[in-house]
């Protein structure tokens, strides 16, 4: 991984020094490094703001998904009524919603960006949890039936352990797109943030600022993904999940 990264950086630097077009559109690693050093407080603030929006967004959407899954578990008929609407809601173009949140929450409000990050990350998590609910091994449910377990015990000892793999799969898909959600929301209007930096730098042809924003987005997505993997790894020896593949 590090070798590949080094090759990319060296090739990029070399190409930028040789070609004015490369330098104009994607800058060079040294210029970008200088930009970060010169504008560190701005870069840091943007990173923290977008990171907060993405992280809170994914937490909110995970919470809503868990809550809805609980409702579907307690009243399974609701799943057939509500879930098709959730699927259909995904057809609404995301870019249409971004200006709407600005109108509702205001340009400088963090709530609008969080809500967009929540909306974009909701379906991968919800979809996986619904799949989990539909795939609970009936054999395990039969054991609980015979033991006359109540709903709480069924939830704790059958539904949750069998849903975790699906839940974390959803979170891992949602991790990078939560950043996309926050960045795209900032495109529509923000006082600070990676999205705002990328958007304004693009209009002014400030390649160093723009690429810094893109690199920061990638870094942020990786951090959130890593956080998900870290939480997943805390489930103890019994949990196999999909973490072995990460």
């Amino acid at each position, binding site marked *: 991984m590090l070798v590949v990264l080094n090759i990319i950086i060296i090739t990029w630097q070399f190409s930028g020094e040789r070609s004015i077009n490369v330098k104009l559109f994607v800058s060079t690693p040294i210029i970008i490094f200088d930009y970060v050093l010169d504008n560190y407080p701005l870069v840091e603030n943007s990173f923290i703001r977008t990171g907060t929006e993405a992280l809170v967004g994914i937490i909110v959407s995970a919470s809503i998904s868990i809550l809805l899954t609980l409702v579907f578990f307690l009243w399974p008929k609701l799943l057939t009524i509500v879930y098709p609407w959730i699927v259909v809601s995904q057809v609404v173009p995301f870019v249409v919603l971004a200006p709407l949140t600005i109108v509702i929450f205001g340009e400088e409000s963090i709530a609008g960006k969080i809500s967009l990050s929540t909306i974009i990350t909701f379906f991968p998590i919800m979809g996986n949890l619904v799949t989990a609910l539909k795939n609970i091994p009936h054999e395990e449910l039969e054991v609980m039936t*015979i*033991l006359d377990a109540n709903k709480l015990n069924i939830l704790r000892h059958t539904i949750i352990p069998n849903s975790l793999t699906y839940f974390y799969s959803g979170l891992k898909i949602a991790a990078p797109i939560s950043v996309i959600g926050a960045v795209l929301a900032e495109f529509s209007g923000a006082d600070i943030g990676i999205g705002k930096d990328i958007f304004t730098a693009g209009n002014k042809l400030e390649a160093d600022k723009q690429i810094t924003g893109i690199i920061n987005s990638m870094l942020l997505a990786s951090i959130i993904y890593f956080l998900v993997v870290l939480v997943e790894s805390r489930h103890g020896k019994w949990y196999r999940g999909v973490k072995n593949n990460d």
Partner: protein
Amino acid sequence: MVTSVKSGAFVSLKNVTINKGGIEILHDVTMDISVGSSIALLGPSGCGKTTLLRVIAGLEKVVSGFITIDNEKPCELYKSQALMFLFQEPRLWKHLTVNETLRLTFKLHKRTANEAELKKILDQLGLADFTEYYPDALSVGMRARLAIARAFCIRPRLLLADEPFAALDPVRRLRLNHQFRDLCKQDECTTIWVTHDIVEAMQFADKIIVFTDGESVRPGIIEFDLAGYSKITDPAAIPLDCLELRKSLLDRFFINDT
């Protein structure tokens, strides 16, 4: 086809007909099973043994007829937790250790885990040194033993077992069968169990119920009382009368002798 195992019926099936996916699995079965008896269900694969067991447990619906266990519906027995099912696979809680599994069973049974009782069960089934192991870390035999331990935690009055030791080698199976029978006797538990092994059935059952193969005729069930036969103590040295019964079962009912 009708059979009956009389005397103080604990489990009673009256004219039970079972359909699965539009196919009639069992037709008009009437059967009484007395308290404390050990009944082996024998028959070829797909003849309806497991389905009958699941119907008695209330896990499958009947088309017609009715089932009572101690004059109650099977689901009523869940509430008093007098019924337990040992499935072919142990169906353990993968997130709980041996100790936690038994404690949860006690908890579901609305009883606080009695340390002495817990230790006794673990000792009896050779799991005392593995209390902190998760099911994944246990061998197949240990998992089967844990399933038995879980079943006996609730002290069932009726235990339904669907080849719980099928995945084990013959030596382990025999050892586990002995432990299983000891626990059944200790708790005076009525047992209905499915097996493909005629010798195993003759060794441990009071009565054998044989499911006939139903290719041209409707599948039916016939009962064999083992009271008049010699007791098998060693499967390697089967008494002559039992050998004759075994041959008769094999010839007449196409049982897969494993």
